[in-house]
């Protein structure tokens, strides 16, 4: 059974002569006709130039250029905004520091010392130093020593 089918397939199989003819015809048609034409470097250059121009035009497609342009435009706008914001901040900071620094600059070192500060606060009498307990405070002539003896009681 197997032998007979094998023989049948062998009979169907192409002989060496048939394969020779088949392969010669096949490769005669398969080989590009350009191979038989004379080749010149001028053709080579022109084909290379055409190929390069095609590839360049392909690479710079409208979609690609618009996509590339967007980041640069965004970058410009954002940098301008950042510059304006920085300028505004510097201006405001300079203005604020000017208003607060002026009084600080007006206080002299003498005024900053604790003794001078005390004397300025205790100068409650128009007649002189109020540190003394016998000096009357106010128009009714009450002294500080007398005011210390006054007992304050809540009203019933």
């Amino acid at each position, binding site marked *: 059974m197997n032998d007979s089918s094998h023989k049948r397939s062998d009979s169907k199989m192409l002989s060496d002569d048939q*394969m*020779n003819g088949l*392969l010669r015809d096949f*490769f005669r*048609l*398969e080989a590009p006709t350009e191979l038989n034409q*004379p080749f010149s*470097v001028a053709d080579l250059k022109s084909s*290379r130039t055409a190929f390069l121009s095609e590839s360049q035009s392909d690479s710079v497609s409208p979609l690609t250029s618009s996509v590339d342009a967007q980041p640069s435009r965004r970058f410009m706008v954002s940098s301008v905004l950042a510059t304006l914001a920085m300028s505004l901040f510097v201006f405001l900071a300079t203005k604020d520091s000017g208003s607060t620094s002026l009084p600080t600059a007006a206080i002299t070192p003498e005024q900053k010392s604790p003794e001078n500060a005390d004397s300025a606060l205790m100068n409650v009498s128009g007649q002189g130093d109020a540190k003394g307990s016998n000096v009357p405070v106010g128009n009714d002539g009450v002294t500080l020593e007398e005011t210390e003896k006054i007992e304050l009681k809540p009203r019933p």
Partner: protein
Amino acid sequence: MTSPGSGQTNDPNRDEVIDKYYREHARELWALFYAMCSDAERAYDAVQESFLRYYDYHGEPVRDLRAWLLRVGQNWLRDVARKKSNSCRLLPGLDDLTGRRDSNEDILVMSERQEQIRTALKELNEDDRKVLVMKYSMDWSAAQMATVMDCSAAAIDMRLSRARRRLAEVLLEQGFQNE
């Protein structure tokens, strides 16, 4: 084997030398590239690409231009195979047949037969395909093939016979009918 030598473009005779080398070896290069990819157009593109690269080459002098071109074309074929750019492929053989007086039916039968053999060739290993291409495309002798394949002429004859038989088997499996 003659070689244009260095890649200096200042040499005024270089263009002529490259032209001459192309006329002498383009078909052989095509056949070897065809054995690698089983695609006539792609093999031709590989020939063009390898010569283009050599034309733009400005490096060290090339000692063996044939080997250099083969290497470049082989690498290019690998790159193309990796990208798998099989789109927009013309129906094989139709361009060559447009000027013939055969009927449309004959043209279709012929192109179908070409495609069947092409498919069958892809089933063979590269060395078997290479001997068939060198034999039937280049009409090389066993001795010439032995030099390229780095083996004896007797081994080439044996390989050729085996490759032919294997191809016939594949064609039979495909239901190929020779008319």
